[in-house]
Structures are given as structure tokens and as C-alpha cells.
């Protein structure tokens, strides 16, 4: 029974219970017909639940912060630079990295669906795929960023990247001050998923 005392942000995320049953029935049918291998399904889920996620992207960002030559390669050919760290493949075949500076802030969206750089960030969060973000990121990026608690100065230029093709974008956030002595691992631990989409800054 739904608890009406607690408002839900998005009822669409509370599926009718028969959805789980429909999916189970579909999986059973497809396995019975020999169309899918249940072990392959498990392997796909395992990959995106536990192996491919924003820690990959954080390693890329930390390397770029720590190694100027790597940063230059990342900004020149992100697909190849990201592959140097062993990441690539589905939904990251054609990567571009865009650099945040004190003067320019980059923000990534897919207004038409949910395109997102899976190999470095994993699967997108619900808000990224939601109508509010998709509709407003391009027309009101400042308002959207404010909803994430990020207030940018009026003089900061906001560049929004709408992923309309198979090119996928990774934001290279600004390295926070006070992190000069940190190791690459310690830097990576500071980097959040949201900072690599462009809805947050990295805090030291």
C-alpha cells in the first residue's frame, strides 16, 4: 500500500507490481525459446552493477589532473586516452572530454533519450533520464544547476553538450585547490559522478 504521508518525486519510479511479473514471464519465454542465455543476462547485470561505473571516470580525471601529458591526450583524443586506462566499448565508442575552467562550465545532457558515456560513468541515474532534466538543461542550465546546489557566477559561460549522435561527453572538472600533494588514488576518490556530468564541482 502506498504511503501517502511521504510525497514521491516521481510516481513513474514506483512501478505497478505486475511489471516484475511481466519481465519474469518474458525472460522465461525467451529462455525457453533459446533466444537468450540466462547466464549471459547475469553477466550483463553483473558488469553494470559492479564493474562499470563512475569510478572508471574518476580514474581518468585523476590521471588528467596528475599528468599534463595525459590531459593533453585526453582533450585531443578522449577515446584513445580513456582506452589507455582500459576503459571503452558500448556507449563509449566515440568519446570527447570537455574541460571546466573558472571561466567555462560544461554540462552534458541527452534531450532526445538518455545517451551517456557508459564505460566511464556506468548507467545513467534516473534524474539524467528524466523529463525535467532533459527538457530544461538546454534552455535553463543555470536553473538546473541551482537545483543541484551549484550557483555559478553570471560571468561564467555555460556550455551544454546535447548528445544527439553516438559521440559521448565526459566533463573534466576543475581540480580543487589544496590537493597539490595528493596521490592519483586520493584525487580519484574526490571525483564524483555528478562532477563528470557537469552538475557539480569537485570539493577538496
Amino acid at each position: 500500500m502506498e504511503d501517502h504521508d511521504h510525497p514521491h518525486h516521481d510516481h513513474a519510479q514506483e512501478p505497478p507490481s505486475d511489471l516484475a511479473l511481466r519481465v519474469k514471464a518474458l525472460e522465461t519465454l525467451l529462455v525457453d525459446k533459446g533466444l537468450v542465455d540466462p547466464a549471459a543476462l547475469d553477466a550483463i547485470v553483473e558488469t553494470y552493477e559492479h564493474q562499470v561505473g563512475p569510478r572508471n571516470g574518476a580514474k581518468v580525471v585523476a590521471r588528467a589532473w596528475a599528468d599534463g601529458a595525459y590531459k593533453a591526450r585526453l582533450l585531443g583524443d578522449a577515446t584513445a586516452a580513456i582506452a589507455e586506462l582500459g576503459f571503452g566499448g558500448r556507449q563509449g565508442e566515440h568519446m570527447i572530454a570537455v574541460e571546466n575552467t573558472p571561466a567555462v562550465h560544461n554540462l552534458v545532457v541527452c534531450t532526445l533519450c538518455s545517451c551517456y558515456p557508459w564505460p566511464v560513468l556506468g548507467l545513467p541515474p534516473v534524474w539524467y533520464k528524466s523529463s525535467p532534466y532533459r527538457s530544461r538543461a538546454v534552455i535553463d542550465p543555470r536553473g538546473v544547476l541551482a537545483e543541484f546546489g551549484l550557483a555559478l557566477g553570471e560571468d561564467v559561460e555555460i556550455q551544454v553538450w546535447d548528445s544527439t549522435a553516438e559521440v559521448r561527453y565526459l566533463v573534466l572538472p576543475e581540480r580543487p585547490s589544496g590537493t597539490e600533494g595528493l596521490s592519483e588514488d586520493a584525487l580519484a576518490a574526490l571525483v564524483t559522478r555528478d562532477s563528470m556530468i557537469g552538475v557539480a564541482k569537485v570539493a577538496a
Partner: protein
Amino acid sequence: MNGVHDMGGMHGLGSVAPEAGEPVFHAPWESRVLALTLAAGAWGRWNIDASRHQRELILGPDYLRMSYYEKWLEGLIELMARTGLVTRAEIASGRPDAGAPRATPPLTADRVPGVLARGGPVTRDVDAPRRFVIGDAVRARNINPVGHTRLPRYARGRLGVVERDHGVHVFPDANAHGLGEKPARLYGVRFSAQELWGEAAGGPGGVHLDLWDAYLEPA
């Protein structure tokens, strides 16, 4: 198509609601829908553009109401039924039709890491006209196709500047409809916020879109 999926620039769809500590999947069925979609896709009966278009074909009110993976489920069922992987009777009954042959899955667990690591690059090593070079002023064409397109409404008719040449990419408007890949040059084009949204657009900045040759005309 001018569907509700093409929502860039719309008002009235609510505020963004980030969820702290959000899990990758909110229920096990979501993860199974993702996996079923990828595994069934391995049959090669449809491509990524066709699967995107299938989800766009969900009726607007349903599209806005459904959760993300619910849309994927509806899209997957339609793709499988349309391409003959399953029959609608099988979907309804949950059981293979009498006499239906048993297939062998193309994607086995041992192949999953390689398939995901390879992905599906869409660049093609073919000649395609380079009508524009970096720095060219271009106008996004005012087209309103009823089929699949990746030119959002908010950019149509607007003036931009070519800032990147991405090379030759599969053209979704053709590929989604089984008309072949029709590879064409893809450009990164920057539009100023004022050009897209008017003089009142707040602050400096712009929006970058990746647009195929056929979407653009010289300006």
C-alpha cells in the same frame, strides 16, 4: 518525429529530483530488462537507431508516465514481435507456440565481456562529402520528418557555427528504418543561447549538438 521525446526547451515537466545514494537499479526487474534488451539485440534483427525509434513510438501520454525501463520493456517487446523473434501469442501466453523451433542464443555468458568491450562503433571508412569546415556558419534545416531523426526541434532553423568534424557516421534517420546505414559526415555545431532562446536567455554560453550533413545548410 515531433514526439514528446524531443523535449529540449520544454517547460512544465517539473524540477530535477536527484536521489542521494541512488542504486544502479531500483528493482531486479529493471536490470533484467536492460540485460534482455542487450541479449536480444545480439540477434542483429534491429540496430540501436531502430530501438531508439521504437521507444519514441510509445504514445506521448504513456511515454511521459512510464519509467525508463518500462519504456525499454515496451520497446523490446515491439521490436521482437515486429521482427519475428517472438509472436504476439507467445507474449500473451508466456509460452513458445506449439511446434516453435528452439534456437541457440547468439550471446553466451563467455562472450559478454568481449561484446560489451567492443561496443558498436558507428564511424565508417567511406568517402562522404565534407560540405563544411570548422568555423563555417550553418543553419539547421527546418525539417519535420514523421520518422526517426536526431535533429531536435529546438535547433531547427537556428544559426550555428561548425566547431568539430567528427568524421563519417552511420545516419540514424535512414538506419532506424532499415534503409541502410547511409554513412554521412557528422559535425559538432555550436548554437548561442541567445540564438536558440532569444535575447532574454540568461548569461553567456551555448548549446552544442552533433549534427549530420543532411541536417545543415550553409548560412
